């Protein structure tokens, strides 16, 4: 069984090829190169290094969001198109869970964080080792998240390069409960995306067309429009 894993949901990029439960080749990087320019060449490179032709793939796993809207869409578009034209199943994995998997050996609470700008985050809380969902993927202001984390009254391990943006505040609120994963585990790995994908039943190939990103947030214009409709209904 050969898997291709694609992770472009935020600034870091990761592409991996997994054969029979072993990582054959993987790229993990966090450089200033847009995924639009960099992701497809990375897929080509990883497959070439692994000595695997696209037609030899059995399934594709993609980090489906939340994260940067554009980043998520690039990964999903590449994954959808490859899966559809190669007639292979496509499995979506939460970008947050995929990142939290870097801490899968930790027994306590794991909190992955993506910076969503203006003090906001995409986040979730999982419990090691099975990554049981404690707080489902969502969008919140950092203050809102910290309030919920405080209520857990236990150590929490924070994961991700974006944690640094909020670290000061996190320590201020959580004190000694705030734990930081070693920096070498901060970047998402497509191999983890694949590992999590192997835990679910493979969807049918026909489902690929209907695959969509999990933004966890409606577009701003739509939110404003809905608000207007509500106000109108009120009048």
């Amino acid at each position, binding site marked *: 069984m050969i898997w291709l894993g694609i992770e472009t949901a935020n600034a870091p990029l990761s592409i991996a090829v997994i054969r029979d439960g072993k990582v054959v080749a993987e790229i993990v990087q966090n450089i200033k190169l847009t995924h639009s*320019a960099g992701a*497809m060449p990375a897929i080509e490179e990883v497959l070439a290094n692994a000595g695997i032709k696209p037609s030899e793939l059995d399934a594709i796993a993609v980090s489906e969001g939340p994260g940067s*809207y554009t980043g998520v*869409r690039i990964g999903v*578009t590449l994954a*959808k198109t490859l899966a559809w034209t190669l007639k292979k199943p496509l499995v979506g994995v939460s970008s947050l869970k995929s990142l939290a998997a870097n801490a899968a050996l930790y027994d306590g609470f794991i909190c992955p964080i993506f910076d969503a700008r203006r003090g906001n985050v995409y986040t979730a809380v999982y419990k090691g080792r099975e990554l049981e969902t404690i707080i489902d993927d969502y969008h919140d202001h950092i203050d809102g998240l910290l309030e919920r984390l405080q209520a857990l009254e236990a150590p929490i391990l924070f994961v991700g390069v974006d944690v640094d943006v909020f670290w000061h505040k996190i320590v201020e609120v959580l004190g000694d409960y705030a734990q930081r994963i070693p920096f070498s585990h901060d970047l998402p790995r497509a191999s983890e995306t694949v590992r999590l994908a192997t835990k679910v039943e493979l969807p049918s190939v026909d489902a690929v*067309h209907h695959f969509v990103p999990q933004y966890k947030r409606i577009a701003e214009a739509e939110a404003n*429009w809905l608000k207007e409709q509500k106000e109108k209904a009120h009048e």
Partner: protein
Amino acid sequence: MGEFMMEDRIILAIESSCDETAAAIIRNGSEIVSNVVASQIESHKRFGGVVPEIASRHHVEQITVVIEEALAQANMKPTDLDAVAVTEGPGLVGALLIGINAAKAFAFANDLPIIGVHHIAGHIYANALIQPMEFPLLALVVSGGHTELVYMKEHGSFEVIGETRDDAAGEAYDKVARVLGLPYPGGPRIDKLAHEGDEAVTFPRVWLEEGSYDFSFSGLKSAVINYKHNMDQRGEEISPTAVAKGFQDSVVEVLTAKTLRAAREYKVKQVIAAGGVAANKGLRTSLESVFAEEGIPLYVPPLKLCTDNAAMIGAAATPMFEMNIRGNLSMNGRPGLELKSWV
């Protein structure tokens, strides 16, 4: 060996630069084998215009369905294709990226070359799907995002001799439509209204400096807004048909006059009108009448080839393919891409 067999060139083309997700199969740059367009217009109507983030979201939902439909209608498989072409720019960057990344993944998986096409080159080459292009030619490209006069002395040679300095013609139409309280997209509605009466409010013609082929529509747009404002202040009702006709008369007169002057100066064999606004009845009638008198053939593609589509991208990509122009897997969306010659 004496017999020369022309091999068919089959190109899959993808377009997603604004609010249409489109794919088409083109044979030899001139024949539409299939042409699929999934329009998002119904979704954007509630916002009164195209919202980039919403457009990008719809493109992701539609892209593989649209490509599959284009192949299915053509009764073709990826192995029947010679290349994949895609709009590289200009356009909404987030929207462009969906078509580009789908095209790259498709090209890679099926071991096909990829060609990045300029959206305006596509609009111009829409005409190659109707009749062969004869050079030198002049193209008037008018749409929601563009107003350009392009001179072509041969295939792949583009000289932008005039362009808008502010709003595109289609943009001005949409804004004026909003002033008149018409729903989005306003262009076709103004055109319709303009034909419903004989009265016209007189608005200025903006010619810019002597000899310029450039355009400017923001002043005209402001004149319409001011007119409406003044009438409102005086408590007088405006006549939407007279405003629509006055506005359209001004746009059409300037577009027609500059196109005619350029066609004469550059001694072209053909004049092409392209882009969404080329479907405008007022503009079409005016161009037809002056070029019939001038004795220069004028071609305007049918509506479905004037608005954004992928067939035109395939038509433009075919001569690029023959000239050995290729993109690669690091192709990026280029929202401000300039129209440059390939030759």
